């Protein structure tokens, strides 16, 4: 066996799993298939994949339940593939432990980027945990120095309030991943603060301080109705 990354595709539509398999194989991944939820759980136990692409609309078990079963005993990265444009479903999947999601129809490059990010996150720190003494974060012109609590864009230092700083650091430490509103609020304000309005106001302020054009952000992207994502690679 080679040490290729092994990806399990759980998808009942043969047409879709065929073309995903073709792209993944072309990008040097090893691919295994499952067409039902039960098969997915069995294959997972026997083959030990490195990442799962999970379709939420499965014929036997609801994809959300498959995700919950997987999360009971494994923390391996799961990317949810959802056909529905329902934000609530995405949030539910993320809160149930999915690492990321893609919405059908998706582009090849988008899918590959999500897979790379999920695998990198897995290789590094566990999902949504602060990295072990990572010294900083850099993307484009944005530099974050965790230890000195310093954020710069180009040469100019950015002055953030303590809360804004916490938010930016949280996003940077999970760069490439969507953090849901609820998750961010719990991390920043604690378990009993429940107002997403405050988070949005803070995000608007951060955008105005960090981005060249706050109307057209480069670094922190909004997934409307779901949460925020700090980019981890600059677009071409």
């Amino acid at each position, binding site marked *: 066996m080679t040490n290729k990354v092994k990806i399990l595709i759980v998808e009942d539509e043969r047409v879709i799993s065929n073309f995903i398999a073709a792209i993944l194989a072309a990008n040097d991944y090893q691919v295994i298939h499952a067409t039902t939820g039960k098969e997915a759980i069995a294959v997972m136990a026997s083959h030990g994949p490195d990442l799962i692409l999970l379709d939420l609309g499965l014929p036997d078990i609801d994809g959300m339940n498959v995700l919950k079963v997987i999360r009971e005993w494994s923390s391996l990265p799961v990317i949810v593939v959802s056909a529905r*444009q329902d934000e609530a479903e995405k949030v539910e999947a993320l809160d149930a432990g999915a690492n990321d999601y893609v919405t059908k129809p998706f582009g090849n490059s988008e899918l590959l980027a999500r897979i790379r990010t999920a695998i990198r996150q897995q290789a590094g720190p566990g999902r949504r945990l602060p990295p072990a003494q990572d010294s900083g974060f850099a993307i484009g012109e944005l530099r974050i120095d965790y230890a000195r609590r310093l954020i710069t864009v180009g040469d100019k230092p950015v002055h953030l309030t303590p809360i804004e700083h916490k938010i930016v650091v949280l996003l940077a430490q999970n760069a490439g991943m969507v953090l849901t509103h609820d998750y961010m609020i719990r991390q920043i304000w604690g378990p009993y603060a429940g107002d997403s309005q405050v988070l*949005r106001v803070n995000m*608007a302020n951060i955008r105005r301080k960090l981005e060249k054009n706050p*109307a*057209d*952000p480069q670094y922190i992207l*909004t*997934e*409307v*109705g779901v949460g925020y994502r700090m980019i981890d690679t600059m677009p071409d």
Partner: protein
Amino acid sequence: MRNNTSDVSLGFPGGSIRRGGKLRNTARMVMIMLFTIVLCELLRRIGIGPQSLILIYMLSVLVVSSVTPSPAYGFVAAIVSTFTYDFFITEPRFGFSFYVGFPITLITMLMATFITGTLTMTMQTQARLAREREHRAQLLYEMNQKLLAARDRGTIVELTLEHLISHLGRPAVFYTRDPNESPGEDHARASEGNGDTGVFSSPEERKRVHRIFALGHTDPVELIDGQDHLVYYEPVISKGKVLGVIGISNREGPLNNGNQTFVQMLTGQVALALELQNMSDEQSSIMVESEREKMRGTLLRSISHDLRTPLTSILGASSTLLEQKELADETRVSLVMDIRENAEWLIRMVENILTVTRISKDTRKVRKTLEAAEEVVAQTVAIVRKRFPRCLIHVRTPDELLMVPMDTTLISQVLINLLENSVRNSEPGALILLDLRKQCGYARFDVSDSGRGIPEHMLDNLFEINPTAPAPVEVVDTARGMGIGLSICRTIIAAHGGTIEGHNRKEGGAKFFFLLPLQEGEQLDE
């Protein structure tokens, strides 16, 4: 008896005043007596005999008992008359003789008083009942007028309760549905400062109401021992169907017959009004349904026509690729590109159609959440950029954070449609401007380009679907499908209570803008 009287006086605030106070009646009596004494004294002086004068005394007693409500005044008048007659008229004057006829006079006077009093009482009772009836008829008439004018169920219920409470002075309740099936749906109301509605909410009372809804009439067992219940119920029935149940608190004692009749008559009118309302509701829902059916039909005709072309193209291109082994690489690539282009177009089309299903079928309303407008704008622009990597979109947002109640998927779809429109009608790489700002309580989104502009013949009905218009059948990226896209935009914006407009710019190119209310509930009339 006491109960009854107090009940009536509650209903008729004027009643007790009309019958006068104790003081006024005593004054009346004294005045009449004094007048009689003076009159008789004058008549005696001109030589009229005592036999005639006693008749005048008798008359005065009759007058007293007929103008006073209680027989007591008459009795007092009778006794006083007998004594004054003895004192003033019979010999010796200014002294009591207790003449032979004294007891007979007294008894006669008392009996006359008694008979007159009884007659007066009956008359007064009759008059009072007539007044009550008249008052009720008046109330029912007013009620009827108002009920006929009422346009919705809520108003009917409110009016009924208002009338019941003001007439009876007791808390009343109106159930439009079985409380066991939909708890919390009753319309309990109490009159001001007069008892509370707590009496209606006990489980036992709910059970009774439930039985009425289930049986279609009041439980016969209750009619037998009905007087002990805390609440009097009257079902609102039309064509054998219970449309509602009216309850009136019995805590102040059971209702008298007149008031029960009143409630029953009122209930009849309410039943009529509710029945009418049901009919008009049904009719308007049929009209809305047929309107929607028509729209759906137009949309479907227009879509199916537009879908067939790209599907045919995809089928043809893929079959060619499979069957023709010896194709030039160039041709292969071009065929595959065609497939992709057509598929992308189909996806956009389907997304547009799907958004329409998000608008609720019954109310044509959308599920709105408060969202930051700039975030929706930024995400939408990112989506369009991904689809058209060469397009140049510049975004401007205000310094102030604009929170707008909206369904983000739908508004995002509107922006996508407008931006794509601009991209398709502009030279590759031409600047497209998306401007967001606040304008008098609305969030205003502007999309402007410097492209070909809107064709003259489309300006008048830009947002209408026109299935009869010949669709250009050349390539995918023409104005084909634009009609549907814009009509969907208008549907979405209208469902948000906003407006959308489009026109050509003087400098060339087109400009579309739409307004969304910043406050929930503010609606622009179309």
